[in-house]
């Protein structure tokens, strides 16, 4: 029996398969795929779309969308802070406040965890329901292991009943990782979470050249890169991002005409209009 995992927010599953919530299963020789999709007209999320509105291609083969429903599942939020030396104490406090606002905006059924990294990655708040107290603490160890930390933060367990989002606040500089962009890319292709990168702007050191790292992760996972000034607006921006995440659709289809397993490239569009579509670039079938 084959299984496919393809979701922007959570792993794929048909609604009828929710009896075993932590372990998605796929039945009757047809592989069920779930894809999380956000549709925008400029800044405006587009509501009310139906299965007939979507064109989904899986490795180039057109698929029949069996259902489309709004994203209403609870979410797991993973907050990853860069606390390395390139982030000042003041900036770190702004990070903390912004992340605290995100945590406050969560629903009771949601869950959140907080990780920090500099030379090493560490768990500050284990996965739990809100409310939580967002704290930041610097490690004694020097260095910045961006690639190691973000790659690890993208290791997710596919979940049936929840969607997953990872928010990474960092300037994306790295001087200490063992792993590299190749690893980061592979992790992005495998993760079932949507990753939003938050890149601070207006820093003394121009970090724009590192933005491609975060952009790549966001693009592959169906998230996006958010550039934000170091001020109170960062919190607003993150909350809007979270809201945007909740306004998406969950598309289901039974895979047809494409062999598995392996990498499946996904293309999602709404042919009748020039909307901006955000969905992950693909998924690995088992």
């Amino acid at each position, binding site marked *: 029996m084959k299984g496919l*995992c393809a979701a922007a927010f959570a792993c794929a599953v048909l609604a009828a398969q929710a009896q075993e919530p932590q372990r998605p299963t796929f039945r009757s020789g047809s592989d069920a795929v779930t894809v999380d999709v956000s549709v925008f007209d400029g800044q405006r999320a587009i509501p009310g779309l139906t299965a007939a509105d979507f064109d989904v291609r899986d490795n180039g083969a057109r698929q029949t969308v069996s259902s489309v429903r709004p994203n209403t599942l609870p979410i797991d939020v993973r907050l990853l802070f860069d606390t390395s030396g390139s982030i000042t104490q003041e900036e770190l406090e702004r990070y903390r406040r912004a992340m605290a606002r995100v945590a406050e905006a969560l629903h009771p059924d949601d869950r959140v965890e907080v*990780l920090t990294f500099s*030379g*090493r*990655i*560490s*768990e500050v708040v284990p996965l739990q329901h809100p409310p939580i107290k967002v704290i930041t603490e610097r*490690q*004694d*160890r*020097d*260095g910045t292991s961006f*690639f*190691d930390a973000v*790659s*690890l933060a993208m*290791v997710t*367990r*596919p979940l049936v009943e929840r969607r997953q989002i990872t928010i990474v606040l960092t300037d994306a500089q*790295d*001087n*200490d*990782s*063992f*792993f*590299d*962009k*190749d*690893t980061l*890319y*592979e*992790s992005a292709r*495998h993760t079932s979470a949507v990753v939003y990168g938050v890149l601070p702007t207006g820093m003394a050191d121009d970090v724009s*050249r*590192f933005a*491609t*790292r975060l952009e*790549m992760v966001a693009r592959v996972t169906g998230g996006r890169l958010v550039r934000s000034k170091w001020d109170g607006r960062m919190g607003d921006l993150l909350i809007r991002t979270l809201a945007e995440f909740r306004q998406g659709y969950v598309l289901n289809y039974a895979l047809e005409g494409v062999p598995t397993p392996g990498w499946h490239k996904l293309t999602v569009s709404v042919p009748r209009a020039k909307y901006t579509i955000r969905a992950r670039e693909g998924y*690995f079938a*088992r």
Partner: protein
Amino acid sequence: MTLRPPAGRSASVAACLGALCLLSIAPSGSAAPQQGLDPLLTAYTAGDHEVVARSLLTSNDFRKLRLLDGRRLDRWLGPWSIVKTDFLIELVDRASAVAPAYVGALVTTGQRYVFNRGPAGASAQDDAAERRWHLIAVGVLQQRLLGAQILGYVDALHARRPLPANAGVWDPRIHLARGIGQEQVCRMLHATARNDRLLSEFEGKAATPPAVRQMAIECMQTALRFLENAAASDAVRDEARTRAGFAAFQLGRNDDARAALDGATGSADRTVAYWRALFLGRVSDALGADADAERAYREAVRLFPDAQTARIGLALALFRLHQDDDAGEAVLAARRVRADGVDPWETYFDGDARFVAGWLAAMRKARK
């Protein structure tokens, strides 16, 4: 993988790539030393091996002794003596701890002093002292990431004590040090280039300029050659092959990397065995052999359970293998390693720094 400044040490000093930077920070004053070297040497000769550590607490203490004035120090050292050689290496080691800007200059002066003792071979005791000096001095240079100076040092040793006639003053680790020094140089270049993997193309517009990329590749090719040469010596073969494997991996030569690592199986040094397992994991990743990668990372975790790098590698390998439960556990284990847990990856580029304390202890014991 890019430059990490030495833990607790100034990146700017590390980035000086040798002793060149020292020229600009020599003290301008000519104040008389508060405490000269003679009393320290006297105490040291009498068996007080802690006198240097006890007396030289900050870089200011080194400044007062005017230890950047090489000619002055040459005059003080005078004719060859084993005790002065040992004392000088104590100064080098102490400088590394509290006055890193002095390390390069002291090693340069010390090397000159040792070479001036005359030809090797006349006295086994003198040869042993010289051999010890070279070993520890180069070890301290590795600790300070002074790769360019290491290369110059070993080149000078080749010129002044050519092999095989002078084998008595050559420790096999000096051969390896040349490769490590070159790795350090490449790492500095690496950081400058912001080029995390030499052949990686992910940076887009921010990609390393072709000329810098070529320079980085040639640098690593040189390191690989030095390391392969060092592997001819039985005493350092496993570490040399391990490092050569990593160099080949960084050059994108995964099959060569795998072969080198496969040939480094006999090390009794747990740290080297860890590096080998870690690199084997990375090479297996690159070759798409996730099950092999998992095995390699598990071995690395077995060797150093608190090493976060190995645990991250294991979690990522299990993740790619879709072993979700095991990957989840591995992630939690990686995040929750002890803050003071030993991860030898973090000291990989420090080379022989891990041996320096032991070598000094042996030297002091021999003096008693």
